[in-house]
């Protein structure tokens, strides 16, 4: 009996303490924006720079007086890249934290897990994930009403690669891709767009995200004698494929990475093997290489300097997506306040010529991605760093 009483008393006390703590955290009079990032977990290379970027921006904005004189409050939940956790966290942001908009999540899978929630709860969601399905409802052929996204689609990356290949007169290519969502989506686009550029895909091989050796796949590709090799993956496998490609003596044909390669760390890890590799990148990766009259020159240089100064590490391409998403929300807030429906309408109709890290955005009722092929530039690795490819 005593044991039970002690347990009951302890539980009640713990409840009380918990209540007290949570109440003490309520802010009044701020604009609350939610963020769902994969800060930890296997997608942390996406979510960590996104979180850092968002927090840096909030600090800057509040230091300059906030939005409409009110402080901006960012509530970040770590999704750990897990669909269930993202779903729970999103509902928590809406019902408990009562945010007016949410930026993120970092990945396409986790975004798709909450699109119905956004629609049902009528909360604007600006995702930092790439899949075109985020802004395309297969059943209606139009974007979901409340969901937007900032990263370029794989279509644009694939077109950038194909345009370059076409320019060089290449017609026979081999694709090798990772079996993750990112790889599958890119591969799908490469296959779909091949006829448009007169490309024949002579080999289409895959590998797993944890694979450590792709020589079997590359050997098979070698047998088909393509004129170029396109690899679509993100993470360490990009480097392994590169090394296998060199080890097998295939480096007479050009190698194209996807935009997932956009980090100087990958060049480092490849230990010289990345020299001469092509890759489509968004403007923020090559801020220094942009000509002075490029529309994105100023914002990308600023971001690069601020990020490096604050975090003492080079900027990551993915942080730029968070920069774009948050600043759009802030622009909406400063114009229409924190009414969810008004923010959504503003985003859909008034984001025109928005100069962001990854492109110049123009949203419309039919286009909740807002970018064109211009958002990618073809870059080559030269002397261990990026250089504009010709």
């Amino acid at each position, binding site marked *: 009996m005593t044991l039970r009483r002690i347990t009951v008393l302890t539980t009640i006390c713990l409840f009380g303490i918990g209540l007290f703590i949570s109440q003490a955290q309520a802010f009044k009079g701020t604009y609350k924006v939610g963020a769902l990032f994969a800060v930890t977990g296997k997608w942390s290379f996406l979510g960590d720079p996104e979180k850092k970027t968002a927090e840096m921006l909030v600090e800057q904005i509040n230091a300059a007086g906030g939005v409409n004189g009110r402080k901006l409050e960012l509530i970040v939940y770590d999704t750990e890249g897990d*669909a269930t956790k993202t779903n*729970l966290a999103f509902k928590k942001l809406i019902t*408990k934290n009562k945010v007016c908009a949410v930026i993120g999540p970092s990945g*396409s899978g986790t975004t798709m*897990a909450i699109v*119905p929630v956004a629609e049902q709860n009528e909360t604007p969601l600006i995702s930092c994930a790439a899949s075109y399905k985020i802004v395309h409802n297969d059943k209606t052929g139009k974007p979901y009403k409340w969901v937007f996204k900032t990263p370029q689609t794989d279509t644009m990356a694939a077109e950038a690669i194909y345009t370059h290949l076409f320019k060089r007169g290449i017609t026979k290519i081999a694709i090798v891709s990772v079996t993750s*969502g990112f790889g599958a989506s890119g591969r799908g686009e490469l296959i779909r767009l091949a006829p448009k550029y007169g490309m024949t895909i002579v080999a289409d091989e895959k590998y797993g995200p944890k694979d450590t050796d792709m020589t079997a796949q590359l050997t098979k590709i070698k047998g088909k004698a393509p004129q170029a090799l396109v690899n679509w993956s993100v993470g360490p496998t990009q480097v392994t494929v590169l090394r296998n490609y060199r080890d097998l003596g295939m480096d007479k044909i050009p190698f194209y990475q996807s935009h997932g390669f956009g980090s100087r760390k990958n060049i480092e890890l490849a230990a010289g093997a990345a020299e001469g590799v092509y890759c489509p990148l968004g403007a923020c990766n090559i801020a220094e290489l942009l000509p002075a009259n490029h529309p994105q020159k100023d914002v990308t240089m600023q971001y690069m300097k601020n990020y490096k100064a604050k975090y003492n590490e080079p900027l990551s391409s993915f942080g730029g997506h968070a920069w774009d998403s948050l600043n759009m929300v802030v622009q909406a807030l400063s114009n229409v306040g924190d009414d969810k429906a008004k923010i959504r309408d503003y985003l859909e109709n008034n984001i025109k010529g928005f100069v962001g890290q990854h492109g110049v955005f123009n949203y419309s009722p039919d286009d909740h991605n807002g970018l064109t092929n211009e958002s990618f530039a073809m870059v080559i690795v030269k002397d261990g760093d990026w250089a504009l490819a010709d």
Partner: protein
Amino acid sequence: MLRIAKLPIAIFALFIIVFPWIARHIPAIDHYTDIMVFAGIYCLITIGLSLLMGYAGQISIGHAAFFGIGAYISAILTATYGLNPWACMLVAMFITALIALLVGTPSLKLKGHYLAMATLAFGIIIFIIFNEEAEWTGGPDGMSGIPGLSLFGFEFDTVEKYFYLVWCFVFAAFIFTANIIQSGTGRALRAIHTSELAASAMGVDVSRFKILIFGYSAVLASVAGSLYAHYINFVNPSTFDLFFSIKLLIMIALGGMHNIWGAIIGAGLITFLSYEWLHFFEEFEVIVYGAILLLVTIFLPQGLAGVPGIVKGWFRS
């Protein structure tokens, strides 16, 4: 544990009935109802699994596969073909039972490590299939647009409605399983667990029982999968990976595998740890899980459900 007491079931039922009301009125735990939905879904799986592991003594490190099969079949049939979700749930149960039969018949002849590895391999192969067969499953990015559940026009479209729906299923499964344990089948299972040789010498058809329970646990997991799919309206393969199978093992070990309450305690605790209480650890929550599993295995092999027994033992001595 042969006699399942009625009073704790009634008390727990009362707790479940009032829980959403309590949660709604305390802002700090408002979202706990949402978490409880998932706890309920996982309870369905652990109830079956605890019967398999605790009573029949068979190991499965691949049960996430059955959870996934139920989820994907429901998803594909309702989202791509627009069939009635309840019918699809039944179809999923049937198909899962068939697969369990197919896989279980040769596997359950194996013992110990061999069985563990066979279920492990099976679980991973199913996961690879979910990832690869993108035309059906949407591949690694998953499948969205799965409709919700409704009954005669009543839509289960809020967290609280789904909460009651799921926990109705849990109670049904609990009572059904408790009946199995207290019946002749249950006694046969205990006999098999203690000694397969002795049991078969007594005339128990060992293989038949093992496969029966394996199939039963698979079907429960399949129902859980369907409920999951219709709740989030989205499925992707990484929900059904090896780590989830291991998490199920942790739930059973923590709760106690020789006691059906252990299934509920284990599932509930691990769900809350997972989705709420271990936020501090972020991705390092895996270390906590490993530590829990190890400590429970060494110090508390009967799980938390065995604690009252231990405490009673203290008082007696």
